[in-house]
């Protein structure tokens, strides 16, 4: 099953910073005394998308759909099984991250950084803020302590923390402040691409807004490009330029944020939106839940992976896997019936 979906990226303004083509990551399932491989979990299965410079691509999906594995493949935190991850480096050359040897990858790493989900787990409790935020600089050759201290002070100010906090340890900070520290560390090497994996889901609701606003401000100031992974549709809608919806290791739909939320073309996207509880008691009862459960990526159904739960499934959906196709400018959908279906978006509520 090869993808012949060439996303025509030149036709639109802004060249892609990152172009992911046919990305695959299979994890072997081993059983028995000899650890024989009896099957594969297809965590990421033929994923295609691109991210333009300076934009935010939101990646949404339910747990186990492969969104975290996708983001890890892009940073080469795990080695992809197949596919290409084309990245336009600062030097102007386009390199394939999926194939790059470790030594060259190391040189590229300062350009791409990660913000983790849980700020209580991602900060070493025995290092103070100076050590935490300056470690990436030390590793990458800035050995002068005063130079690093200046930069740490600058970074702390940038994320809304006081430079005097430099000697303190993470336990002295609240969840929101810790996430600011994590962001400061990610920005230490002036990255171009920042992968944020559920950066606000571990935070209190009253603090989430602060961190989201900070991410938006930093993007404007530093011209950052974000890949924003989350399961919360309202957070993704708030921060993203375009949104990709994943289901069982595949992309179901990619579109500009407003187009996706107003006129979803994939039944799964529409179902996901219908399931979001609206924070208004006057619009009750519109929650139409999907029946059934998410299939296991080790043993996915035939054809379109969504067909057992899809209210619009036809015979063709059980046999053929739909390819991602552009049905409107910049609106890509993997559904056999995308063109004929009229689905309700959020504004219809």
């Amino acid at each position, binding site marked *: 099953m090869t993808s012949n979906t060439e996303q025509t990226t030149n036709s639109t303004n802004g060249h892609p910073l990152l172009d992911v083509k046919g990305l695959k990551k299979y994890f072997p399932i081993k059983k028995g005394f000899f650890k024989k491989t009896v099957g594969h979990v297809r965590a990421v299965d033929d994923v295609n998308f691109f991210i333009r410079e300076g934009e935010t691509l939101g990646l949404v999906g339910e747990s186990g759909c492969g969104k975290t594995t996708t983001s890890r493949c892009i940073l080469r935190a795990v080695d992809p099984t197949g596919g290409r991850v084309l990245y336009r480096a600062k030097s102007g050359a386009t390199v394939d991250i999926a194939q790059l040897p470790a030594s060259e990858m190391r040189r590229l790493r300062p350009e791409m950084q990660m913000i983790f989900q849980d700020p209580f787990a991602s900060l070493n409790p025995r290092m103070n803020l100076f050590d935490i935020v300056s470690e990436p600089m030390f590793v990458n050759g800035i050995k002068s302590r005063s130079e690093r201290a200046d930069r740490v002070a600058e970074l702390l100010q940038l994320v809304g923390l006081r430079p005097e906090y430099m000697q303190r340890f993470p336990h002295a900070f*609240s969840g*929101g402040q810790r996430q600011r520290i994590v962001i400061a560390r990610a920005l230490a090497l002036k990255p171009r691409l920042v992968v944020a994996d559920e950066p606000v889901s571990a935070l209190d609701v009253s603090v989430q*807004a602060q961190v989201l606003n900070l991410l*938006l401000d930093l993007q404007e100031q530093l011209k950052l490009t974000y890949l924003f992974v989350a399961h919360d549709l*309202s957070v993704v809608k*708030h921060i993203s330029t375009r949104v990709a919806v994943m289901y069982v290791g595949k992309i179901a739909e990619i579109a500009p944020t407003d187009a996706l939320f107003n006129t979803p073309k994939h039944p799964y996207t529409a179902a996901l939106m219908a399931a979001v*509880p609206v924070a208004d008691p006057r619009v009750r009862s519109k929650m139409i839940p999907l029946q059934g459960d998410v299939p296991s990526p080790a043993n996915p159904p035939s054809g379109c992976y969504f067909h057992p739960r899809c209210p619009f499934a036809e015979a063709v959906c059980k046999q053929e896997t739909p390819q991602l196709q552009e049905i409107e400018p910049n609106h890509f959908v993997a559904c056999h019936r995308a063109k004929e279906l009229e689905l309700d978006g959020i504004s219809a509520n």
Partner: protein
Amino acid sequence: MNNQQPLLSVRNLKTYFSLDEGQVKAVDGVSFDVNPGQVVGIVGESGCGKSVTIKSILRIIQKPGKIVDGQILFRHNGDSMLDLTQLNAQSEQMRQIRGAEIALIPQEPMAAFSPVHTIGNQIEEAILLHQPVSKQQARKIAIERLREVGVPSPERRIDSYSWELSGGLRQRAMIAMALSCNPKLLIADEPTTAIDVTTQAQVLNLLRDLQAQHDAAIIFITHDLGVIAQIADFVVVMYLGRVMETGPVDDIFHNPQHPYTKALLKSIPTVTSESGSRLPTIEGAIPHPFNRPAGCPFYPRCIEMMPGTCNTSTPSLQPVTDTQSASCFLYHKQTDDE
């Protein structure tokens, strides 16, 4: 609804934890009523005391936590009001109420079910403890309950272990267990936070239907305002162990009174809000429990703080409209200080 006798009445409940570092006032003077058949939503951020409140009601607070003041009046057997704080937590009477008349749906069904017993075994255990039935009858009731909550082929599923079920099915089995003895009050502690949105919608719809069928009252705890808007009749907003505002769900969302409720509603990203815009935020962070501010717990983050009033004395919960109550000096001068 208002003339009705409440099923549960929590009055000025205070639950403190005495630690070496000092006293944590996890719940500090909480009052609310639950009427029969009503869904009361308790909403608040982490550390606001919502879980400790319901643990106090069930009398399952672990040491060093202790109920130091207040009453929890529960209408036992349909007539007299019984003060649960006066009972011994391990007494026969409390054990009869817990599980039979007041049931709990815990947050993490994976952690709540034992992995070494089948779910049928665990549901039957609850039934046998509280109802005078034989083992065969108990199994029949358990199958019936599982069918009621929408578990497919319950005759087969009853013999499966919790780890063989998906997250949604596991939560359904948990609900079946909570309903097994026809409780009058169901306490749901963040029952949907550990599951995905599509499954969450299934579980919320199920709870709504069951509530209508059984006419049980529900206390629904969550930090998700969307969920509260969809399921609750009456809302209690908590912050740092105190009730900030109470009122019918429509008034809370469309006519909030307390500055905290107003700020919270504004700061939350919703699917209907404009994308890419800056959200209004609540400045600062939730204070550490050892560092509780004097006076109103919200004053350091409040934009309508009145110096000399809010930072010196604590406002009490008083009616501010026909239906809503708020603890805020913007509306009244009643304090809650000893």
